[in-house]
């Protein structure tokens, strides 16, 4: 299921994460973000989670104060895309413990790292929650070791 992009934004339209799986210049990216935000935030409540935008299918789901929005190829399975979004939320939840929007604001780089262990090039790379969690843990350990060595926090 080839995802073209994955965006996270708040109900006020503030971008919290943007992952692009196709090459787009900055201007084009900004346009996509603008269009997605307008379209998704403008949906009436209790609508279905699927939209059409240009030649893509757009799948979105709201989790608390964050909208998770991804763009798919026209031939892709939308119902599975919902599962992918859900899995990502579960991974974030496991990592941060009852994840909320603030976690993602203050630890956006971690959100990216987790995403990069789950998806690559728009495809799912690991279907086991446990395995993803273990990889992130190990990577973090590797990072901490460095920090300890430097005896100052990296960032």
């Amino acid at each position, binding site marked *: *299921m080839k995802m073209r992009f994955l965006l996270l934004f708040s109900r006020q339209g*503030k*971008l*919290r*994460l*943007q992952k*692009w*799986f196709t*090459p*787009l*210049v*900055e201007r084009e990216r*900004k346009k996509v973000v603008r269009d997605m935000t307008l379209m998704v935030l403008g949906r*009436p409540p*209790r*609508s*279905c*989670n*699927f*939209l*059409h935008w240009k030649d893509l299918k757009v799948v979105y789901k709201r989790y608390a104060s964050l909208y998770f929005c991804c763009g798919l190829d026209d031939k892709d*399975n*939308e*119902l*599975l895309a*919902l*599962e*992918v979004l859900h*899995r990502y939320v579960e991974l974030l939840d496991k990592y941060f413990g009852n994840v909320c929007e603030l976690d993602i*604001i*203050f630890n*956006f*780089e971690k959100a*990216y*790292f987790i995403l*990069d262990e789950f998806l*690559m*090039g728009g*495809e*799912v*790379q*690991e*279907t*086991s*929650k*446990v*395995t993803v969690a273990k*990889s992130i843990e*190990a*990577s973090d350990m*590797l*990072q901490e070791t*460095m*920090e300890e060595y*430097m005896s*100052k*926090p*990296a*960032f």
Partner: protein
Amino acid sequence: MPAPIRLRELIRTIRTARTQAEEREMIQKECAAIRSSFREEDNTYRCRNVAKLLYMHMLGYPAHFGQLECLKLIASQKFTDKRIGYLGAMLLLDERQDVHLLMTNCIKNDLNHSTQYVQGVALCTLGCMGSAEMCRDLAGEVEKLLKTSNSYLRKKAALCAVHVIRKVPELMEMFLPATKNLLNEKNHGVLHTSVVLLTEMCERSPDMLAHFRKLVPQLVRILKNLIMSGYSPEHDVSGISDPFLQVRILRLLRILGKGDDDSSEAMNDILAQVATNTETSKNVGNAILYETVLTIMDIKSESGLRVLAINILGRFLLNNDKNIRYVALTSLLKTVQTDHNAVQRHRSTIVDCLKDLDVSIKRRAMELSFALVNGNNVRGMMKELLHFLDMCDPEFKADCASGIFLAAEKYAPSKRWHIDTIMKVLTTAGSYVRDDSVPNLIQLITNSVEMHSYTVQRLYKAVLDDISQQPLVQVASWCMGEYGDLLVSGQCEEEEPIHVTEDEVLDVLEGVLVSNLSSPITRGYALTAIMKLSTRFSSVNRIKRVVSIYGSSIDVELQQRAVEYNALFKKYDHMRSALLERMPIMEKTTTNGPTEILHTNGEAEPSVRDSKHPPNIPQPSSQANDLLDLLGGNDVVPVIQTELPTKPASSGGELLDLLGDLSLSGRMDVKCICFSPFLAIPPMTAYNKNGLKIDFTFERSNSNPNVSVITIHASNLTEVDMADFVFQAAVPKTFQLQLLSPSSNVVPGLNKGTVTQVIKVLNPQKQQLRMRIKLTYTHKGSSVQDLAEVNNFPTQSWQ
């Protein structure tokens, strides 16, 4: 130099900003600090600074000055640096900038790093944003990693290979050997990414597809294990084992089974199993069922399986979950062409979806409903669709109206039903109807001859209530102008006739003319309609008054029409009845463009055109020309056939041009008609005025029963001869006519002789013969012209 502010600190600070301006100020200050820090080549805090830059970039601020810093981070030995560096590269760089090529060497080194997490992050970056050049350079490394036993790296290498193939399809061959044992893996991550890789290769190359067909049994086995195996906590999602992998396998099976009997056969069982055993209470189960249905419909599955698939979609339609209903409607739309009957069975559920609250679902349901209309269900479906048209949001109305018109045209069980349906659309969604439907509807109404009185009555009643919907008013105006006499005469077979007076009809039309709701086009329709009624009604004075008022209208179009209609009353009253007579049946055209004249005998148009006289039309004729064009105006013009005079006469040329211009393409035909006598048909007097009498006698052609031969006999009862006598004739479009040369062009006075001329008429459709004739001659020194209608042909002459 104090340590740069920490990332979380910065985020906290920026979030305290109360206005956009305040935020901008903070960010500018921080950016300045970061820039100077970069300039100083500070290794310790580079990572922190780039991280902050990435945060500010997400808020929408420019961060291009950090691009090179990302490259420096990637080159660093610290894992922290690399992690942020690669993240920065993915966010700030794109393949259109040359800078990204500088990454290639770093990535190459990192792909060979001793730590798998470093290798992993390099693979990830390459797999997300690697350009074609990078992919070419690094494909070898990726291929090596594809063969490693480390499943963490193997799965990443597989997806990286997918990206390489997407960027540089020629490199696909290179990865073929490594795919040999991919499906033997136990690790789900590797299995999943391997299936993705195989799918990509099969989609891109028919050779690969043929090569990988042999994997079908193995894929079937893996899928079976997933379904049959017990609970596996690691991969379980709501009781289903690894739905992601299941769906990907189903997708690959779809590609492998398409068009191939053996493969399709091999997967029939497992598809049936998945379709029946998958738990449908949650979205995840339905996602798998959806993919299964798509696969079943695409491969050469047996009919029982196809019916099962459509039934699953039917069940989806009843699901409470909107998403699933939406997905079902989309899939049914795709299959309705191939499995029409099976989808028909779910018609009532689909029609219920028209009442759904969700906009996307309503639209899909509408499209699907139109696809399902056929001769058997048209009445019921139309009722539902008309109801939908009434209740739906404006965004749907135009499409729905067009769809209804199309379906009604194809499947109307009776003319009355068809007219009724059109009426309903015009009255419920009249303002949303497309502009091109008005002429189409007018044509339809004209051609339903027996429904004229019914139609005009219904339109009249509708317009009495509401004149805001322009297409409705336009059609109604046209019909009232055309059939006003039927309306007033109170004859209507289909319905209880209403009592309408001429004045009431004119009231309505005048109301349309003056109303602010009427568009200029509608006003034009109304004015023309009023004018037409001058030959059908007796209250001509009122009409004359109206027409003269509009002679000074601000609207140029209306003014011109009114002036010319005025002229018609004053100077050309003798032409008025001919010009305003009932429209003949119009030929159906596929587009709304000019109606075309048929060619016969392969005569080329240009040669015919050249032999036409150049128009030297004197003023009066050109005015009449305009009138005829005006009658054409927005309406479809009935094309009147003309013939080429075998004896060219200069005055004759004008008339031909006149009538020739009526046909929008301005072309003329030459027809050849055979000649032979037939049984006696009584002669008739076609014209008798001012002393000139023209009789018609008839004969039937032997070789062609569709051809009638008419001989005109012109005689002159006045004392003075009529010189330069020219007789011309025109017939409706469904006929073809040829005029041979006259015996002479002087009609001697006191009935001392007759001028004869032969007309041959081809009437393949056996329609009632009608003719318009034009006579010109010189009498007592002045030139006389007259136009007349000949309608009293005996039935035998054209049957």
